[in-house]
């Protein structure tokens, strides 16, 4: 029953799986670049969910064609919202990458666990 419904809603299903994989990458991989890729995957999964919500089977892209009336256009609103979302995700990645670079310069590693160890040593020395 569940599987049947998931098959009907397969883009949402894929979005959930992608979300889970991204979350696992962010939470279990110690490497900072991997974490950033994971965040991007999570955000893409959410965008996928939105984009799927706007689609209609047999619809055409929401570009008005005045010569052939009677077409079924898909909903343009999710696309418009996700354009904003993509810009946001690019901005976040850019800022995060610059921070990763500075962290690397300071600690000499991209491994979050080793950075945490070094940081606690620093605090103990205070």
């Amino acid at each position, binding site marked *: 029953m569940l599987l*049947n419904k998931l*098959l*009907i809603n*397969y*883009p949402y299903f*894929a979005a959930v*799986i*992608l979300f889970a*994989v*991204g979350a*696992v*990458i962010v939470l279990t*991989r110690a*490497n900072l*670049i*991997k974490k*950033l*890729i*994971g965040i*991007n*995957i999570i955000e*893409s999964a959410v*965008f*996928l969910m939105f*984009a*799927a919500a*706007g*689609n*209609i*089977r047999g*619809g*055409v*892209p*929401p*570009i008005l064609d005045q010569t052939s009336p009677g077409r079924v256009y*898909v909903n343009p609103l*999710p*696309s*418009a919202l*996700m*354009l904003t979302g*993509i*810009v946001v*995700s*690019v901005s976040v*990645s*850019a800022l995060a*990458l*610059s921070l*990763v*670079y500075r962290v*690397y310069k300071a600690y000499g*590693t*991209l*491994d979050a666990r*080793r950075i945490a160890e070094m940081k606690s040593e620093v605090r103990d020395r205070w």
Partner: protein
Amino acid sequence: MSLVKLGLVDYGNMLMLFVLIVASLTVYFIRDLLHAVIVYGVFSFIMAVVWLQMNSPDLAITEAAAGIITTVLMMLVISRTSRREE
């Protein structure tokens, strides 16, 4: 199954979504960061294809461009830090 008969299943789209999941799993397992970033680039390109299939060309073209710029920036940072995941 009945779903297939009703024409409710779009195999091309499903295949692309499957490739997306495989790509994300590859990012999890791969050790070389440069390869991971390249796989991410592929991921965002496939995502653009998926959105094209879902009738949102605006989204597809923007995702393609944004995926390239993110990949470029990530490669830039990797080239100046370390390439291996310890």
